[in-house]
């Protein structure tokens, strides 16, 4: 764990990342893949997540002279690792450390999508909320106060319509600003009740000693408090410096 961890992205099947990697997360059926296709066009690769029978789609696009690698994560309602898909999405955002994560939400039922957003924001501050299907929301006479939402969440909010292409320009611009460090969001942290915060306070110094002191140690501490064992497996898998054992060594 100490020292320089090997390129965590390698364990996700991404060989070399000269360009910043951006993850695309969201609930199922929010048009995540429509946006992925609209951004990357034909510039994509499809494969599997290493060792999992879940499809991984990866693509590239260029904007403002900057190439960006976009990874389409499986659609999930949550990141609390009840299923393989959730575990992949969570591991990628936490261990893969993408330069930015776009959370795609459905404008016609925004409320149910914000649960996932808040979970992502607990892991990383580099989040963009992309509210899709705004054309459909308009037709249903749903009004969304984007400026107020952005202010309350503390992260950029971009309304788009993946189908018509409306807002994609602003999305690409926002991604560019985030991966080049011009935009540093400061999302509002969720404060839990006294009991949870007290326990966090107790274990946090120890966790910071192991994984380093950054914003994400709080998230890790919360998962450990929940007794989530998959996150410990994740640490062993993604953050150890040793290469995985070779087949011959296992069989010997």
């Amino acid at each position, binding site marked *: 764990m100490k020292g320089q961890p090997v390129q965590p992205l390698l364990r996700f099947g991404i060989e070399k990342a000269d360009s910043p990697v951006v993850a695309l997360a969201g609930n199922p059926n929010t048009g995540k893949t429509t946006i992925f296709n609209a951004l990357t066009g034909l510039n994509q690769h499809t494969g599997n997540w290493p060792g999992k029978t879940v499809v991984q789609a990866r693509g590239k696009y260029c904007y403002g002279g900057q190439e960006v690698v976009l990874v389409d994560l499986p659609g999930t*309602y*949550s990141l*609390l690792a*009840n299923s393989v898909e959730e575990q992949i999405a969570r591991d990628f955002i936490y261990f893969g450390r993408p330069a930015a994560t776009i959370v795609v939400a459905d404008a*016609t*039922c925004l*409320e*149910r999508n914000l*649960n996932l957003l808040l979970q992502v924001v607990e892991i990383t501050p580099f989040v963009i909320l992309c509210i899709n299907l705004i054309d459909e929301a308009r037709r249903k006479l749903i009004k969304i106060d984007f400026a107020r939402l952005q202010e309350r969440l503390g992260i950029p909010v971009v309304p788009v319509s993946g189908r018509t292409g409306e807002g994609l320009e602003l999305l690409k611009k926002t991604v560019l600003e985030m991966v080049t460090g011009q935009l540093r969001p400061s999302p509002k942290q969720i404060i839990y009740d006294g009991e949870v915060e007290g326990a966090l306070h107790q274990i946090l110094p120890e966790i910071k000693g192991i994984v380093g002191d950054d914003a994400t140690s709080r998230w890790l501490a919360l998962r450990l408090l929940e007794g989530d064992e998959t996150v410990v497996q994740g640490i062993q898998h993604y953050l150890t410096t040793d290469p995985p054992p070779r087949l011959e060594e296992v069989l010997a």
Partner: protein
Amino acid sequence: MLLSQLPVGKTGEVVAITCSGLMRRRLLDLGLVPGTKIQTLRQSPGGDPLAFNIRGAVIALRLDTASQVKIRLVK
């Protein structure tokens, strides 16, 4: 009453979720928090599972899962 007893077409409001662990987490993630309105939409031929409208999405739950949700009949 329990969510599993809510007749098709009727609407209830979540009062409490009685299970714990992963299933509880799952139900909360789906948007089933106290105060949420939920409507039974359909019943499968065998009576299990049931389909519900939860915050704008249609979600099917098995009877043993639905019986972990305490509700109050609305209207």
